[in-house]
């Protein structure tokens, strides 16, 4: 299927989200759509899928001109959109969600899933409830669902973590494209897509500023410059200075005074042994795990959504394991879930969300500028913000709210390079003001670049990693993760 978006213009109020954006995708191609948070990537995908209607411009599907698309029609002709936070029915399992979308219910769904999983070597647990899945699992689930439903064009919105942590997913995309299907991947992370795509479009401030077709792998710096108007940190993908002050052994004792959080013999799943871990005052501790291997359960138990099977959660030596979430928040713990929309309601105005966290109207713009959130007005709905800007907004709230402890699940997900740089600097700065961090991450490189201590979550519980060894050979962490 050949798709062309021609001179698309889209306004949100007075904000010009897309400014004459044009792209095309041919059969069998993997096309990258790169840009910083708020560049217009998701808006363009929403228009192609039919969730938004363009103010001007046209869409051509196999040469047939359309002024706008319609999601039902898109699905019918084989265009499927895997959103950054896939909208599935949480209370149902993957199988039940698939059954809802499958027009012909003649075939046995487990057989279909088995057949396609084997064909593309893509393992997804369809029997799990969506509510219990991490974002990565949901993205993978919806991708496989789309393939089973007959997708010919896959639109993948920011699947960065999947692309960087799951080799089988990358292989699947290559194979799927070789079969004549088209794939459009939006991303802010060049390294996630550069060796996967056939072509790259670079977007900035709603415009397509470049169409890169040749020698893509050698043009990393050029793409980076095109994406970011003001440039980013010295180390391209990740700024190098993040842990330098604190990562040196011996310097920690002066900074970390007392224990803030302690997980004592905590059992979150029967197949994972007791977790013993701690976070001290002003410390950044990461717990790394493979997506779906206990990370979500651990976060849910720490928030209070679920009860641990056994064990205790001690916050400043007080057992909070039976307290409801709001009491934990009242203690000064700020929780950032994997699915950012579980924290920030898209139905609210930006002003209202900030107000919910006690940030006054007069402080909103100053607060949001802490993390360079791009927004039209405090009166704009959160639904107008891109996924990356929602992540930045959460960090801005943390900065202005100054909690005692932040417990976050994949806090960097959705952030572009600039956003990542801002986030890491902010975390460092906040720690100087007495904020401690427990980061549950799937990406060990992210953990290594910011943490004072690292635990790996595997079947043996939480295993602490020797950071000196890990700096020399980061694969130590990976080996522990898969052990």
């Amino acid at each position, binding site marked *: 299927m050949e798709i062309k978006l021609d001179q698309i213009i889209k306004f949100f109020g007075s904000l010009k989200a897309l400014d004459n954006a044009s792209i095309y995708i041919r059969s069998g191609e993997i096309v990258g759509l790169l840009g910083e948070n708020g560049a217009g990537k998701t808006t363009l995908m929403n228009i192609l899928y039919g969730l938004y209607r363009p103010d001007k411009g046209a869409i051509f599907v196999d040469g047939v001109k359309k002024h706008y698309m319609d999601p039902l029609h898109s699905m019918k002709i084989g265009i499927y959109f895997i959103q950054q936070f896939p909208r599935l029915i949480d*209370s149902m399992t993957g199988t039940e969600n698939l059954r809802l979308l499958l027009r012909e219910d003649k075939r046995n769904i487990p057989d279909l899933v088995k057949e396609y999983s084997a064909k593309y070597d893509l393992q997804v647990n369809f029997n799990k409830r969506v509510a219990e899945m991490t974002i990565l699992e949901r993205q993978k689930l919806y991708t496989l669902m789309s393939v089973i439903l007959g997708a010919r064009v896959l639109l993948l919105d920011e699947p960065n973590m999947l692309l960087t942590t799951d080799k089988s997913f990358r292989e699947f995309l290559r194979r799927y494209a070789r079969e004549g299907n088209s794939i459009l991947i939006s991303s802010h992370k060049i390294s996630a897509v550069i060796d996967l795509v056939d072509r790259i479009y670079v977007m900035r401030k709603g415009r397509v500023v470049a169409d890169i077709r040749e020698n893509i792998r050698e043009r990393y710096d050029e793409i980076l410059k095109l994406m970011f108007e003001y440039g980013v940190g010295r180390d391209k993908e990740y700024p190098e200075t993040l842990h330098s002050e604190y990562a040196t052994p011996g310097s920690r004792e002066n900074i970390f005074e007392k224990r803030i959080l302690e997980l004592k013999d905590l059992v979150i799943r029967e197949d994972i042994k007791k977790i013993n871990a701690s976070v001290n005052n002003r410390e950044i501790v990461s717990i790394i795990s493979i997506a779906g291997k206990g990370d979500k359960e651990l976060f849910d138990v720490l928030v209070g959504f679920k009860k641990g099977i056994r064990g205790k959660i001690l916050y400043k030596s007080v057992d909070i394991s039976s307290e409801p979430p709001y009491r934990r928040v009242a203690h000064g713990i700020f929780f950032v879930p994997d699915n950012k929309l579980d924290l920030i309601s898209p139905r609210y105005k930006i002003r209202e969300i900030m107000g919910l966290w006690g940030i006054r109207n007069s402080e909103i713009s100053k607060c949001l500028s802490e993390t360079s959130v791009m927004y039209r007005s405090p009166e704009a709905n959160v639904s107008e913000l891109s996924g990356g800007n929602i992540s930045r907004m959460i960090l801005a709230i943390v900065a202005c709210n100054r909690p005692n402890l932040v417990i976050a699940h994949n806090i960097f997900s959705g952030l572009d390079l600039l956003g990542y740089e801002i986030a890491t600097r902010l975390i460092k700065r906040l720690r100087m003001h007495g904020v401690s961090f427990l980061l549950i991450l799937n990406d060990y490189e992210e953990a290594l670049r910011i943490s004072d201590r690292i635990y790996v979550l595997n079947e043996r519980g939480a295993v602490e990693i020797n950071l000196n060894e890990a700096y020399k050979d980061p694969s130590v962490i990976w080996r522990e993760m898969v052990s």
Partner: protein
Amino acid sequence: MNSIYVRRKSDEPSTVKIIIISLVIFTIIVFLGVFSLMLLSGYELKDLINIFFDYRNLLSPITIRYSIVIALLSLAFLINVAGGFINLGGEGLIALSMLAFLIASVYNLGIFTAFVLSILLLILWASIPYISKVYLESSDVLISFLQNFIALFIINHIVTHVFRGELARPRSPPIDPSINLHYISQDNILYNYLGRVSIESIIVLLVAVVFLTYLLSRTKIGYSLRLLSYSTKTASISGVNIPRTIFLNLLMSAILISFASAELLLGGERKIFYNENAKIGIGSMSFGLGYVSLSIAILSIRKPYISLLYSYILALGYMMVFSSYGFYRLILGVAIVGLSLLSVLLSELLLRYEVRLNWRLKH
């Protein structure tokens, strides 16, 4: 038609747009619907024109009184809806509140205790579906709908067996004169326009409109309250004290419902009665009062002051029903509820949703 696509718009419509579109839809569906039904039911066109274009209804004391009752109930349900709680048991709540006034009357407890009793009873009653929804993920709509029948059954039993005032018909004894509100004196010029409306109800209504508009859109408590309608998970992770928020929600709505039922009971016949057609002691006005108020609440959810306008229009609709007679009054009463709900749904769809119908002709 090949497909239909519905998407909620991100922008909230302007007040002017809401008023114009809703008024047009209300007029077309409710007025014309009732008009057609009456015509089909055997009314003469000439009589109908007299009923429908009776300008005296526009500012009659009865219209104003009904508007105030509907507005108080609408605001009560608006608070519930804002917190994600759809209460279909409006009439049952009014019945229970009236029961509290009756108990206070029988045991000489005074007006203040009557209100406290009513508020407590309503909080307890409404907390069943709300708490079940939040903590057990059960259907608040279904539970409150069933509760409505139970409440009406209780009232039936009370006025038939426990506190029966008359032998001929199941009615409660009259409410003691000590349990009363303050009314405009008949010498006052305002009496010609407002009639027997309590001063307390007017004040509570006006304060509630301003207070709720501010509370829901400008305060942390209001944001917390609304967050429950998005997701309990989000509310709890945002530090919202869910039990306290539920209590606050129910408390505010219970106060307003208590004033509405006091207005109906104390300003009217001052007796609670139960019969097949009118159900409880609010005469013919009981036809789907809860459903109508709930539909107004849904339509004016982001702008509570708009509920005043809708309440007035619906009160005019009720006046039409009262102008009919006999068996038709019942049919029209039911029809007006259905039509007003339909008009609310349509207005909501036109104002807040983008609807696309894709037609493809078969060649």
